[in-house]
């Protein structure tokens, strides 16, 4: 070696012999736990939960104590929908930077969409993602394989092999499976392997060349409209196909009041249909596009007040199962361009909880439902063990300071890309610590012994 780099032992991930959260408000929606308790974790497993559970452990050699006064301890978050850009677009994000961002955002599990280069339609790509994540050791990465080869909408991928390599679902995300016949076969085939089929619902014949939501604002700005009906048509069709095939169907990032209505109707008939929504579709309308801010170009596009209101109600009542970030990092090459030329998407892993916690108490949204939608409900969608706060569970936890207020632009973010309209917004609730698979993967507490 001509030169030597100072090698510091990576402090994270770190498994702790004995980790104690003392006097923390612990919230576990699955067991209706919401109480101030002590939580004891021994070698990555939760061993005691309850008032006074930490007694007698405080002086133990090697024990780490976290004073939980005024803090919340939540089951760690699960993201159904992130783009970590590796392989192919590592200048925007890679598995390591993306998992750092996920850990800082309170996530223990991240599902990664297949629209990489090459597309994740083979075992080789799936394995690459998984092995890069293992190297990192942070939040667990779950690949979503493509439904069709090359996301071309024609030939099904080898779903059995993708599943063996680690895929937890299939999606042609970014591209809708337009052919009803292909979608029917995909639902039937994926059912063999218990993989949910995740649809990006967009009738491309109705959205060719579209830049933003079709409405008054698109007419004023002279931008080509993406009508709501293009989403609703596909979700309605897919619900019928899911019913016909009895297969598991998951609607990605729904954005319209119509989609929420169709999902509610499907659920009322007991169909195996689930749905997710992004933070930006719960917080912004097409009005944010005035001024041609390309950070607000997303797909599906930002809609109108009535859509936002319907999505918030649907989240609160459980019609929408899960929050998904649709974390989509882009560099200035894709965003510092004409609006019509800009790539759609915004990053979001580090901002999601801080943005959405501000909705608690509005439109019927409880903290327990928000936590469920960010953690346990998405885990159920992909069939992984949901993070829990109970004795015997593997420690997958997020410690939150609910009093903190912070502005993303003032912090060093972990993601490589800063494409977000929320950079200068004030967010609530800072993530202080994240545990994934029993290990500390993010730590801003500076836990003391």
């Amino acid at each position, binding site marked *: 070696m001509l030169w030597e780099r100072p090698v510091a032992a990576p402090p994270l991930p770190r498994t702790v012999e004995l980790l104690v959260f003392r006097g923390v408000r612990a919230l576990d929606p699955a067991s209706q736990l919401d109480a101030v308790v002590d939580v004891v974790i021994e070698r990555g497993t939760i061993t005691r939960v309850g008032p006074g559970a930490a007694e007698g452990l405080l002086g133990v050699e090697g024990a780490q104590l976290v004073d939980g006064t005024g803090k919340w301890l939540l089951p760690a978050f699960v993201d159904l929908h992130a783009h970590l850009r590796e392989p192919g677009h590592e200048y925007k994000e890679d598995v390591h930077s993306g998992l750092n961002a996920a850990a800082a955002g309170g996530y223990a599990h991240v599902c990664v969409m297949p629209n990489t280069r090459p597309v994740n339609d083979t075992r080789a790509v799936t394995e690459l993602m998984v092995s890069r994540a293992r190297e990192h050791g942070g939040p667990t990465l779950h690949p979503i394989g493509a439904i069709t080869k090359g996301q071309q909408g024609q030939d099904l991928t080898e779903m059995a092999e993708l599943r063996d390599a680690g895929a937890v679902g299939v999606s042609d995300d970014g591209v809708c499976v337009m052919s009803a016949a292909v979608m029917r076969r995909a639902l039937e085939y994926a059912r063999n392997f218990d993989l949910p089929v995740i649809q990006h619902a967009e009738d491309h014949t109705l959205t060719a060349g579209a*830049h933003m939501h079709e409405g008054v604002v698109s*007419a004023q700005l*002279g*931008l080509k409209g993406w009508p709501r009906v293009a989403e609703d048509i596909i979700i309605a069709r897919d619900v019928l196909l899911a019913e016909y095939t009895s297969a598991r169907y998951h609607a990605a990032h729904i954005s319209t009041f119509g989609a929420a209505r169709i999902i509610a109707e499907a659920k009322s008939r007991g169909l195996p249909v689930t749905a997710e929504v992004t933070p930006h579709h719960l917080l912004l309308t097409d009005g944010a596009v005035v*001024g*041609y801010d390309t950070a607000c170009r997303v797909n599906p596009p930002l809609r109108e007040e009535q859509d936002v209101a319907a999505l918030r109600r649907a989240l609160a009542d459980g019609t929408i199962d899960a929050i998904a970030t649709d974390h989509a990092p882009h560099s200035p090459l894709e965003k*510092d361009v004409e*609006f*019509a030329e800009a790539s759609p998407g915004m990053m979001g892993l580090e901002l999601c909880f801080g943005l959405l916690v501000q909705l608690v108490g509005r439109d019927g949204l409880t903290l327990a439902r928000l936590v469920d939608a960010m953690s346990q409900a998405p885990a159920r969608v992909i069939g992984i063990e949901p993070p829990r706060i109970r004795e015997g569970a593997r420690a997958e936890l997020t410690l939150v300071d609910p009093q903190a207020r912070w502005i993303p632009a003032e912090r060093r973010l972990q993601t490589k890309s800063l494409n977000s309209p929320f950079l200068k917004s004030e967010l609530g609730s800072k993530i202080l610590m994240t545990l994934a698979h029993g290990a500390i993967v993010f730590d801003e507490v500076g836990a003391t012994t």
Partner: protein
Amino acid sequence: MTEPRQRHLLGIAGMSREVALSLLDTAKVFLEVTRRPVRKVPTLRGKTVLNLFFEASTRTRTSFELAGKRMGADVVNISASTSSTTKGETLHDTVATLDAMHADVVVIRHSASGAPHIVAQRSRAAVINAGDGMHEHPTQALLDAFTMRQHLGDDLSGKVVAICGDILHSRVARSNALLLPLLGARVRLAGPRTMLPHRARDLGWEVYDRIEPALEGADVVMMLRIQRERLGAALFPSLREYSRVWGLTGQRLALARPGALVMHPGPLNRGVEIAGDVADGPHSVILPQVEAGVAVRMAALYLCAGESGPPTAQE
């Protein structure tokens, strides 16, 4: 280093009635200049105007070029056929390059809506929008209003203007629909449903899917150019049918007020949106519109680059 200029002309949206009227009044003075034997004033001597056209245009570019030259500015035409993305250059770099050339005014024509706005956010030069995508074409609307005032009198209050054709994709219609109400006129927009904005009434626009009711009693009839490429997008079945249902014929023109003006931003599709005899007839002010274009663009350049103090006819 000069301070960043804020006086851009990006659109009619956000423009006050006072600024609009001042532009139109200033243009009158410049119209007189363009009719002199020596059509030149030194108002912008030493100033640099960059005509940055990302989209092909002969009329508008020539009009801005003449406007700049008649005011003594150095005018440079840059035709850039590609957007920033195809070049792999960010808009920020494009703007920085232009600023480094010390342009006083950058006139931008771009096929992407909002491109001049993004440039203006960071440019030190004043930016004039010479047409952006399907968004706005403010100097076209100003020259249309200028032409109306020349023929109908300065006060356009209560005048009825029917704009007919592809409203959805027309930046001319959009800018006129904003400017004319500012001046007191009433705008009717007519075209096939496939070429009207979805829920156009929510915009506060008065829309018609047939041309006849829109023409009734109108003081001005403005026909928009039909883009033949829309045929492929299945927005209308054939030029023949378009012409038969939405074309301006002498017979249809008779529905308008006697002496109504016929306008068209050009170039014309004779026999499609407008019959040849109507375009050349006594009602037509299509060529005066072109003349007004130079005067209005002189006023726009003056607004954005001129020193303080109004120009005088004696200058």
